[in-house]
């Protein structure tokens, strides 16, 4: 396997270990999730009872119930990390693509959990507010919290059905019809289980032996079981594929355990309202174990073919990439050794591909540009003007803004350009220009150039809208040879035409001097 490709295909621990750890991590996580969710539901219910004075035992019990929420939710979160880690390692492709399918909702879980956790914990740990506000906050927190298993269920349903990923994509954040039914059944199944677990816990641990409270919790517990018995068949019917023999065995064992649990809780021995903690807890956890085993078996089967094809594709890609490895590492080695903390490096890497190593505008990308990069060696400009061009770029050309470098680096870059090509300052005066030529050139400038470049060398408002706009002659000049070249031949890709094409060399020189005089006047 190519060392430059294979990370995602590497497994830090053997498959069996991954499976065992993932399952056991998920089992503990789910137990705490169900306890937290059930606790939140019951607390809000008894808060409602308190608000509307229904039932004598309900008065203030919600606080007692809610006080336990902090422990459940904290452990649920922390125990959720292990399965999250392991599924990313063991079920990389289905898991990441399912989170990608529901990315927005998946990340929304963070907000949902933070708001509901803070609300519940504040209410359960001393926050004193009006009862209706308490109820409102509790209901809001419960709705937000209850949405979380819905999103998880959607992600897992999607992960287990790779054949429908495109259909899910086409519908945005929605599952296609058949899966939607399955998702709903699965989600309600989780909520029903939460009710059972929450009621079971509070029957023993927060009722304080109060028979009224215990009777209430027992009622919730049996109601939760009843809900499961209604939803369970719907869930089985909604399964996108047939159950394996192993799943059927696990399901049967789960139902049998549930039957024993119900008999223990609702049987004759429990008529007095009491049943033993140890045996009933073991049975309840057993039911969860078998149900999760069914889920795990189905998931393993759903992922198997996808992972096999992904591994095969991965091997093929690794082979294809192998020839590029040497080049990639060599480039990386060069890159990490190079610091853009000096002007020669910045020029060489950020400018030269257009302006050329020698600043002559003949870099390797120059041929791709309609507006050719300027020959830097021919520029004589003020330092602030050069800095403004570097920081802001030139509109309508390829010249980008280099504000990606802080001011000091651009100042150094200008100094470097000046050191190499003397770009900062005034151009030398043009020799051999007679006053008459100068006068005529002045007139020519007014007639042919000023409409864009402005009478004083500052572009007119209309010309400022050109892409690119003309340069400011009060701050920017080209050496005579280059200036005459532009006057005569124009500047490709811009509005600058060869307006001086037919003029005599003397008049062109005089026109250059006129531009230089504008610079002097501007200065």
């Amino acid at each position, binding site marked *: 396997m190519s060392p430059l490709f294979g990370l*995602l295909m*590497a497994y*830090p621990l053997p498959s069996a270990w991954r499976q065992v750890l993932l399952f056991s991590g998920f089992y503990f996580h789910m137990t705490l999730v169900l306890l937290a969710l059930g606790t939140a539901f019951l607390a809000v219910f008894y808060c409602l009872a308190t608000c509307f004075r229904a039932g004598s035992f309900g008065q203030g019990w919600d606080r007692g119930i809610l006080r336990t929420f*902090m422990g459940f*939710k*904290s*452990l649920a*979160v*922390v*125990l959720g990390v*292990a399965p*999250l*880690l392991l599924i*990313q*390692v063991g079920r990389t492709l289905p898991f*990441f*693509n399912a*989170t*990608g399918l529901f*990315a*927005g909702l*998946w*990340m929304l*879980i*963070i907000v949902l959990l*933070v708001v509901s*956790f*803070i609300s519940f914990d504040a209410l359960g*740990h001393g926050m004193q507010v009006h009862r209706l506000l308490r109820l409102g906050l509790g209901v809001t927190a419960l709705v937000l919290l209850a949405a979380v298993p819905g999103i998880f269920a959607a992600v897992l349903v999607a992960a287990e059905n790779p054949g429908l990923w*495109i259909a899910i*994509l086409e519908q945005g954040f929605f599952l296609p019809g058949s899966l939607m039914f399955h998702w709903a059944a699965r989600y309600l199944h989780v909520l029903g289980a939460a009710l059972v677990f929450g009621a079971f816990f509070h029957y023993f641990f927060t009722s304080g032996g109060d028979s009224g409270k215990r009777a209430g919790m027992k009622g919730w517990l049996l109601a939760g079981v009843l809900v499961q018995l209604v939803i369970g068949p719907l869930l089985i019917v909604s399964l996108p594929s047939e159950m394996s023999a192993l799943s059927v065995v696990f399901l049967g064992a789960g139902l049998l355990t549930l039957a024993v649990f119900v008999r223990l809780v609702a049987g004759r021995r429990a008529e007095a309202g009491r049943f033993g903690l140890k045996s009933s807890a073991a049975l309840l956890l057993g039911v969860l174990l078998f149900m999760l085993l069914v889920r795990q078996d189905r998931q393993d089967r759903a992922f198997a073919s996808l992972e096999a094809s992904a591994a095969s594709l991965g091997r093929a890609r690794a082979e294809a*990439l192998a020839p*590029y490895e040497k080049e*990639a*590492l060599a480039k990386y080695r060069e*890159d990490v050794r*190079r610091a*853009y*903390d000096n002007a020669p490096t910045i020029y060489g*890497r*950020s400018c030269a*591909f257009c302006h050329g190593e020698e600043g002559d505008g003949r870099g390797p*990308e120059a041929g*791709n*540009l309609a*507006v050719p990069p300027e020959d830097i060696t021919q520029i004589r400009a003020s330092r602030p003007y050069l800095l403004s061009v570097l920081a802001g770029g030139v*509109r*309508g*050309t*390829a*010249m980008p803004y280099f*504000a*990606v*470098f*802080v*001011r*000091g680096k*651009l100042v150094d870059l200008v100094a470097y350009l000046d050191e190499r090509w003397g770009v900062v300052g005034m151009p030398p005066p043009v020799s051999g220009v007679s006053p008459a030529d100068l006068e005529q050139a002045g007139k020519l400038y007014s007639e042919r150039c000023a409409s864009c470049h402005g009478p004083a060398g500052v572009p007119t408002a209309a010309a400022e809208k050109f*892409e690119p706009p003309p340069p400011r002659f009060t701050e920017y000049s080209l050496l005579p040879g280059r200036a005459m070249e532009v006057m005569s031949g124009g500047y490709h*890709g811009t509005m600058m035409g060869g307006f001086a094409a037919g003029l005599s060399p003397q008049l062109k020189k005089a026109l250059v001097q006129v531009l230089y005089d504008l610079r002097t006047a501007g200065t």
Partner: protein
Amino acid sequence: MPFLLFQVPYLGNGMAIGLNAVIHVIISHGVAIGFTAMIVVAEYLGVRKGWPGWEEQAARMLKPAAIIITGVGAVTGVGIWFTTSALNARGIGSMLRVFFWPWFIEWLVFTLEVAAILVYYFKWDAWAGERRKYRISFGAAYVALACVSAFLITGILGFMLTSDGWPWSRSFVQAFFNPSFPAQLLLRLGLSFTLGSLFALAFVSFARLEPGHRRQALRVYGRIMLAAGVLSALFGVWYFAVVPSRFKTHAVFSVLTSHFSQRPHLFWWANGAAFLLLAGAVVAALAGARRAARVLVIPAVIAAAALTAEYERVREFIRGPYILPGYMYSNQVLLTEEAYFRDKGLLDNSPWFGLAGRAGDKTLEAVYLFKQNCSSCHTIGGLNDIVDRVRGRSLDGVYVIIGRTHEMVPFMAPFSGTDEERHALASFIYDMATGKTPVRTFYLPFPPGRDGKR
């Protein structure tokens, strides 16, 4: 790319991951390690030293700490897995292969941490008299475990900046115990205690306490903050000394961004003001001056949070353009793939693009190219808007810039794709920049097509 590419509207993917991570860092460092340590200090002074008022103060500090740690700190910590799995699946999946065991051990430590804070909180009233000794040991154990978490995570974070010889050796030891690891660990611990003592100062300044006790508490926490702050500064100097110039040179820009990069004095003024506020809070605390502390401490808390966010921003930014140095660019393209896609094409070699069955849809092709190449940092129409970045440039200019990103701007990943794909992306961005086509976010993995399908 074997995974889908989602774009967080307005914030962008990098900023969404960063926002969650910064909130987590402020809580995990400032509250979980620092503030809880200050609670243990208060309990120690009350229980072991018998200083009046301290034990009660510790109890009052513990409740909000427990709620914030378990409600926000833990969730945003796990939230990092949520954001990265949705937005940077290939990156986090690959990192997980390199650092599976540190992360797995960190999970065990995290579990113990949560158990310790729950016992510490729930048993506070139950363990009275001599049993208070056990209680304090749970608080201390929690702080120690949180420091172990910092140790484990710092090795991974340090790797992302200074991977040392890992690209060639693939040595875990070299990756984890990388050159910036020790300095960064000490810096983080120093910052934790500085933040924690500052949060404690805020609590003491505003809580209803007996005046004499408040003065004493202000002085105690002021001294701790002074010591931790000075040490943090020294560790900070050490840290930045070991960070190679290649990365360090972009530190100031990472904070100023191109909006303010030509006014670098703002960086120094803002940081100077933040440090002055922190120093002011320390002086007020050392003087036991409640009113001055009340005035200064909230701005100081904001300044400290901003400095923490700034540090994380700098660290995350300057590691660009890599997420796994020597292996993967920050846009989840492998170093080898860049060259491969240049020859063979990105779209033809992206499984999801093929699965979507939308070849020939020019918009989709361009959106996909944008998402794969640019969306880990840039948005369309939001923060760090790609349209703003190229606005005013000519079409051929955009084409040239795209092909030279990495060369021109060293913290940007290179473009991956053929020349034709480079042209397609350039036209797509250019058309939006010139108003020829509307600016749209395209947050879903595949935007709606002509038939209304996604």
